[in-house]
């Protein structure tokens, strides 16, 4: 598989300011702080982590909705962050996003046809005006909605159906990559399965690549080929779906997996349970050295002074821990 997207040392800091008349910067929220990964054509990269780990900021920067503080990314070998004008518009067709909340991400005053067809207004070269309504109907059909409903408004649809509208909109320009930011988190279990199956089908049909961001580890495993685990703006471990879930080596990944409740009451009391104490530290003032050390049971002096690099120490995949070792935590 050829690399479609290559991200190197991506950093996004947001300034924290004080004062009204004389605004001064008193600190930086280090939302994304040195993230590197690659994405191949047709591949799904899952990104997991808890709130505040920077996964949604990563999505915003990848979509160029927020400019990066530093770092590079190339799309099909061409630098992505320096694109301007016509080249930028052309690139935007290739990368689309599906957002978490199907209630606030669709304009309530627009019909479904207008929402799904709006990308064609901005990129008229993709579909001539005469063929647009036909294309929109096709798209609605592809995501499993009734094409007859083209003139309805978002409030006439359920949450799962609205998420399908969001997916149809993302598909309109035939993108190569879709960034999915928590696309099924707001949905009920029975509806979640329908949308996940749809995403998997569309990937096969259109050869899409996904950056799939979610906090639900079961959902991520189901859809991902490779998985990156984020903590406080950094990737702490990255590997194939099997490596991360069956042979995790970073203590944070292990704790995260161990905290997921398992739907089997006979396993009660027979699981390897790791309980973290406390909350995630503030990204304004992250701990020195390894950022996980304040909650880590393995932490020693070296963890406070030296930041562990994301390299392969044991097994076959990289992990940012001085004391990385395999531990089987998923029953």
């Amino acid at each position, binding site marked *: 598989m050829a690399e479609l997207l290559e991200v190197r040392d991506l950093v996004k800091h947001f300034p924290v300011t004080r004062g009204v008349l004389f605004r001064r910067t008193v600190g930086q929220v280090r939302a994304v702080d040195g993230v590197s990964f690659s994405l191949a054509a047709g591949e799904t990269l899952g990104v997991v982590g808890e709130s505040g780990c920077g996964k949604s900021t990563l999505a915003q920067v990848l979509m160029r909705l927020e400019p990066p503080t530093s770092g590079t990314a190339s799309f099909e070998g061409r630098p992505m962050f320096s694109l301007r004008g016509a080249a930028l518009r052309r690139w935007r067709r290739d990368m689309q996003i599906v957002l978490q909340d199907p209630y606030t991400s669709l304009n309530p005053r627009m019909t479904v046809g207008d929402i799904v067809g709006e990308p064609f207004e901005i990129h008229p070269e993709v579909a001539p005006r005469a063929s647009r309504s036909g294309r929109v109907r096709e798209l609605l059909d592809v995501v499993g909605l009734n094409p007859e409903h083209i003139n309805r408004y978002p409030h006439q649809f359920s949450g799962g159906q609205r998420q399908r509208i969001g997916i149809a909109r993302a598909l309109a320009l035939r993108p190569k990559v879709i960034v999915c930011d928590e696309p099924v988190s707001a949905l009920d279990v*029975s509806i979640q399965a329908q949308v996940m199956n749809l995403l998997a089908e569309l990937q096969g049909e259109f050869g899409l690549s996904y950056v799939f961001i979610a*906090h639900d580890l079961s959902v991520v*495993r189901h859809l991902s080929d490779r998985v990156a685990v984020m903590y406080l703006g950094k990737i702490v471990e990255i590997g194939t779906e099997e490596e991360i879930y069956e042979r995790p080596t970073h203590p944070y990944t292990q704790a995260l997996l161990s905290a997921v*409740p*398992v739907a089997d*009451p006979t396993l009660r009391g027979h699981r390897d349970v790791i309980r973290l104490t406390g*909350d*995630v530290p503030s990204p304004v003032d992250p701990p020195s050295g390894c950022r996980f050390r304040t909650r880590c049971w393995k932490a020693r002096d070296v963890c406070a002074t030296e930041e562990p690099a994301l390299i392969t120490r044991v097994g076959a995949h990289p992990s940012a821990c001085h004391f990385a070792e395999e531990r089987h935590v998923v*029953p």
Partner: protein
Amino acid sequence: MLLEVDDLHVEFRTRDGVARVLNGVSYHVSAGETVAVLGESGSGKSVTAQAIMGILDTPPAFVTRGSVRFHGEELLSASPERRRAVRADGVAMIFQDALSALNPVFTVGFQIEEQLRVRRGMSRADARARAIELLDLVRIPAARQRVREYPHQFSGGMRQRAMIAMALALDPEVLIADEPTTALDVTVQAQIMDLLAEVRRERRMGLVLITHDLGVVAEVADRIVVMYAGRIVEQADAVSLFGSPGHPYTAALMRSRPRLDAKGTALETIRGLPPSLLRIPPGCPFHPRCPRAEAVCVSHVPPDVRLGFGRTSACHFAEEVVGG
């Protein structure tokens, strides 16, 4: 029996018509027991809790039939004073969104102390001391300083802990937890579930856990009540329910969940959508989405079929479903 809900019917009278939100819900909780109420949005799991607590908004909500009994005493017809007393030290409740459940303009300490001063007649100093003890109990670090802080100064997990402390202040016999960990991250969720289990064990408190998460249910519940469209479709102990679900809806729900321990292929889905409560289908409310629906499912509401001790399923074919 500590707390008993019997044949509860609630309807919402709206501009669009009457929504039948609860259609004969019955369950009970004993001391020291964890009962999980499992259901998707709109199944009526939270409305049942609100009816128990007497905090339904009337109008539009009306309890049209049924009873809620606490130690055998009917609550639905009790005086407002009596209900307030039961809410104080009988049945307490915690909510999903701790930030909106706590008052932003008072300190966390004040909100815990208020009930102690009003209901227990404690002095300010005694109430403050007790509030610090309670925050300690729910493992809020530096409780002595934290007691003077406001809800917005707490993290999500700490707010949920503060709300638990508040609910425990008057030693309730039953705690109703409405999606207590849904807004929290998994590592914090695990901490909060451990805390609830510990408090329940130590105080022999009845715990009603309202959730949509099958995993959480499997880890803590003694008994499980599955709700769909304002009805209880299945009741069973945790091991039996997860071992062999007795209702097609429960079975489908379990199969549609992605697994942590295997990648799996396509997920099984439940076709269609949950019904509008304004127009609940006749017969079994699940029949339009059920893979084994037959003519009888459309014409007759299924009875509660007994499937062994304390186990029921509201399906015409319950025995076949449970047999696989």
